[in-house]
C-alpha cells in the first residue's frame, strides 16, 4: 500500500515575500510579537523565527517589521497557484507558500517526474522573479506529501526527486524534528531515537501503545507511508453542500458569509454520518459561467469559520490574480464538497488544556472587545517575578500574545526573590502608588535610615484626606534595593505591613523620605 506520488512546491519565507520585501533588504514578519519569517538579509544578521520583535530589532536595527496577515499571504500565493494550474487543475493548498498535487497524470504528459519537477520549478521561478525572489523555491517529488515536502525543503532552491519506493531510505537519516510534533520529537530524542529511520523501525503496535493515535500517524509518516490509507471510493455525492446566490454576490464578504453557513451545514452532515474529511473542495461559479476550484487541506481541523476564511482568500486571490483569469461577473453559485471522506476516529484534544472550544470562544469575545475599546484595553497576565506585589505578575496587551496559548514564564519568574513580600499577596494593587503619611504617636512622620532602622513605631496612617487609620499591628521595615546598577531604574525602598484597628491591612513603602501606599490586602 504505497502513498500517492506527490509533487510539493515549497516557497521558503513566504510571509516576507508576500509582505513585499526584497531578499536583500532586512525584513521580518511578526505575529503576536514573535518573528514568523525573515528575509535572507535579516537571517545573515542573526534574526530567526521565534525571536521577539525587540530581539530581532536589537540584532538588526535596520530591519523592517511587517505584521503577519494570513489573508495577504494567500492572496499573494494565488499568482503561484495560478501558474501551477498549467500543469494540473487539482492543486491542494495547506498554507500559503506550500502547494501540492498528485503527479500521476501530469508526469505522464510531461515526460516523467524529473521533467515535470524541472518544468514546475522554472514556471514558479518566473513568477518569483517578478518579486525579486528568483531561485528560492524548492520542488520535491516523492511517494506521499510528507516525504515530498521534506524533499522540497531539502532541495532549497532547486528540485529533488525521490525514486518511487525510495521514500523510506530518503527519510531514514532525517531528524525526528521534521515530523512537526515538538512534544513527540522531544520524547523520541530522549529515548535515543534521533532519526526517522530509528523511529520507523519500531513495531507499530508498540508505538500505538506508547504514543496513541497521533503517534501512529507520525510512525506511518516516518516509514514513508501516507498518513492514513488512501480512500478508494469517491465521497458520497449527498455530502456536498451548495448555495445559489440570487442576486449574484458582487462582494467577497457576501460570498464568505454564505460560505460560513455552507460550512456549518457540511460539518453537520459529516457529523451526522460519523465521517471526517481530509480536504474540502471549494468551487465558485460566476454568472458568466467562469468556474474557480481550489482544494484546501482540512484534516478535520478546520471549523466553519476557517472554511469561510479560505473561501474569502480564494475569492480575493481570484479577483487579484492574473488579468486573463479574473472573473467578469458576480458569484452565483458556491459549492463546498468534502474530499477523501473517512470514518471519523475523533480528534483527540490535548488531555491537559490545549486548544479548546472555550478558548476559541473567549478569543473571539476578547477580539470583539478590542474592536470596541482599542487593542490596549484588553490585557492578559504574565508572570515575571519580582519583589513587590505589582512586579510579580505583569500585564501585557492581549494583542501582543497568542491568547489562550500557554505562555512560558521568563526564567526569573520562579527564581527566589530575596526580600520579596511574603505570601499571601495583596488583592488590590493600585496601578500607581498613592501618597500617604505614616506617623508616630507624636504625629511626626516616621523615617527609616540607611541601615533600615525606624525613627519610631508607626501609630497611625493618613490614607487620604480625612481617612486616618490607627495602626494595630505592624511589621517591617523590609528594605529592598533593586537594580542598583542602573541609575535610571534603581529603586531603594523599605516596606511596612500595617494592620489597622478597623481590620484593614495595607502595604506601604518609604522611598526618598516619602511614604506611599503600595497595596491593600482586601
Amino acid at each position: 500500500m504505497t502513498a500517492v506520488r506527490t509533487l510539493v512546491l515549497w516557497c521558503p519565507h513566504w510571509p516576507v515575500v508576500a509582505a513585499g520585501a526584497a531578499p536583500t533588504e532586512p525584513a521580518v514578519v511578526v505575529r503576536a510579537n514573535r518573528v514568523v519569517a525573515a528575509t535572507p538579509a535579516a537571517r545573515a544578521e542573526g534574526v530567526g523565527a521565534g525571536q521577539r520583535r525587540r530581539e530581532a530589532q536589537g540584532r538588526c536595527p535596520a530591519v523592517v517589521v511587517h505584521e503577519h496577515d494570513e489573508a495577504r499571504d494567500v492572496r499573494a500565493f494565488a499568482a503561484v497557484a495560478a501558474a501551477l494550474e498549467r500543469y494540473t487543475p487539482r492543486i491542494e493548498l495547506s498554507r500559503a507558500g506550500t502547494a501540492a498535487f498528485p503527479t500521476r497524470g501530469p508526469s505522464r504528459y510531461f515526460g516523467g517526474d524529473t521533467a515535470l519537477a524541472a518544468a514546475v520549478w522554472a514556471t514558479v521561478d518566473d513568477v518569483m522573479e517578478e518579486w525579486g525572489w528568483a531561485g528560492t523555491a524548492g520542488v520535491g517529488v516523492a511517494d506521499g506529501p510528507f516525504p515530498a515536502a521534506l524533499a522540497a525543503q531539502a532541495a532549497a532552491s532547486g528540485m529533488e526527486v525521490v525514486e518511487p519506493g525510495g521514500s523510506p531510505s530518503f527519510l531514514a537519516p532525517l531528524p525526528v524534528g521534521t515530523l512537526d510534533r515538538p512534544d513527540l520529537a522531544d520524547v523520541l530524542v530522549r529515548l535515543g531515537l534521533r532519526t526517522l529511520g530509528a523511529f520507523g523501525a519500531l513495531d507499530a503496535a508498540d508505538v500505538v501503545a506508547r504514543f496513541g493515535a497521533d503517534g501512529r500517524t507520525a510512525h506511518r509518516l516516518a516509514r514513508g507511508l501516507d498518513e492514513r490509507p488512501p480512500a478508494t471510493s469517491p465521497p458520497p455525492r449527498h455530502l456536498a453542500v451548495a448555495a445559489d446566490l440570487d442576486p449574484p454576490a458582487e462582494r467577497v464578504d457576501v460570498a464568505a458569509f454564505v460560505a460560513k453557513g455552507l460550512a456549518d451545514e457540511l460539518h453537520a452532515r459529516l457529523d451526522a454520518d460519523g465521517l471526517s474529511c481530509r480536504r474540502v473542495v471549494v468551487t465558485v461559479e460566476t454568472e458568466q459561467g467562469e468556474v474557480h476550484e481550489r482544494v484546501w487541506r482540512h484534516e478535520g481541523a478546520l471549523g466553519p469559520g476557517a472554511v469561510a476564511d479560505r473561501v474569502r482568500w480564494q475569492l480575493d486571490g481570484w479577483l487579484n490574480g492574473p488579468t486573463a483569469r479574473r472573473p467578469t461577473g458576480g458569484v452565483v453559485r458556491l459549492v463546498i464538497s468534502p474530499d477523501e471522506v473517512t470514518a471519523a476516529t475523533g480528534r483527540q484534544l490535548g488531555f491537559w488544556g490545549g486548544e479548546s472550544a472555550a478558548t476559541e470562544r473567549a478569543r473571539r469575545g476578547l477580539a470583539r472587545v478590542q474592536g470596541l475599546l482599542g487593542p490596549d484595553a484588553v490585557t492578559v497576565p504574565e508572570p515575571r517575578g519580582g519583589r513587590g506585589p505589582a512586579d510579580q505578575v505583569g500585564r501585557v496587551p492581549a494583542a501582543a500574545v497568542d491568547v489562550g496559548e500557554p505562555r512560558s514564564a521568563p526564567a526569573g519568574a520562579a527564581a527566589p526573590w530575596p526580600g520579596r513580600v511574603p505570601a499571601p499577596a495583596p488583592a488590590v494593587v493600585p496601578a500607581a502608588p498613592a501618597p500617604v503619611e505614616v506617623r508616630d504617636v507624636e504625629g511626626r512622620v516616621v523615617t527609616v535610615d540607611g541601615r533600615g532602622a525606624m525613627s519610631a513605631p508607626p501609630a497611625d496612617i493618613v490614607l487620604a484626606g480625612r481617612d486616618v487609620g490607627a495602626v494595630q499591628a505592624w511589621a517591617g521595615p523590609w528594605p529592598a534595593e533593586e537594580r542598583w546598577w542602573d541609575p535610571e531604574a534603581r529603586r531603594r525602598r523599605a516596606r511596612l505591613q500595617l494592620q489597622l484597628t478597623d481590620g484593614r491591612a495595607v502595604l506601604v513603602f518609604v522611598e526618598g523620605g516619602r511614604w506611599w501606599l503600595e497595596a491593600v490586602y482586601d
Partner: protein
Amino acid sequence: MAVPTELRALADRVAPVALARDRGLPVVEALQPLVPDAVLTRGSVVGVTGGLGATSLALALAVGASRAGSWTVVVGLPELGLAAAAEMGVVLDRLALVALPPHDPATWAPVLAALVGAVDMVVVDGRLRLRVGEIRRLAARARERGSVLVPVVPGPDGARSPRRPTVGEWTTDLTLSATDARWEGLADGHGYLRRRRVTVVAEGRGRAARARRADLWLPTAGGGVAPAAPASAVAAAAVPGGRGERDTDDVLEAAVARTERFLRSVPAGAQVS
C-alpha cells in the same frame, strides 16, 4: 479506601452522565457549602460584596471554574492584584482583564454584552454606573448564554435589601458577603500578614433563599482559600497580636523577626530618608 480528590474530580469530569449539578460551574471545596448544589448555576448573577475581603472572595469564586477550563474576564477592576489571583489558584493562561474607558460610559454595556456568552465567568466592578435597563439586559443575556456574571462591590457593604438581594445596582440570584475579617500573623513590629479569617454569608433567591454561612481562611498562608473552624472555637487563639500557644507559626515568626534584626544590623550605604 480514600480516593484522592484529584482523581475523583477527574472521574467526575469524564463521567458520561451529566447530572443537573454538573451543568453549573464548579467552585472550590471551601466555597461549596455556600452555594446551592455546590456549583454556580450557569446564567446566574452572583454578587460579591463585603467590607473587607470582597476582592479576595471574588477571586476565590473564580478558581473552581478556571481550573476546570473556563475563562475568566475581569472588567473594570484595574487595581486587581494579579499575584493574589495566581496564588488563589486562578489559571493565568485563562484570565483576561478589560480596562473600561472612564469617560465613555456608553461603551461599558456593549463590552459586557460581548463578553457574556464568550466566557464562562465575567467579573465586573459592581460600582460602575450602568443603567438599570442595561443591567437587566445583561442579566438576561447571561441567562440565555450560560455565563455567570459576578458583580463585585468592595468596601463597606453593597446595598442590600431583605427581600431583593442586590449588590450595587445589580439584582442577584446569590450574594456572597465577606464579614468579620481578621488578619493573623502580624504583631507589634514583627511577623507578617499570614492568613485571614473571614465569615462569608450567602443569601439569594429561589433555591438559595436559605442563608448559609461559612468560616474561611481567605487567604490562607499560601494565598489560597480553605475552610476554617468556627470563630468561637478558636477565639482565644485568634486574638490579633496575642502570643498564645507556641506552635510552628510562632517559631517561624521568631525566625522572621531574627532575620529582620540581622538585616537592620547590616551596614548600608546612603540614607533612605
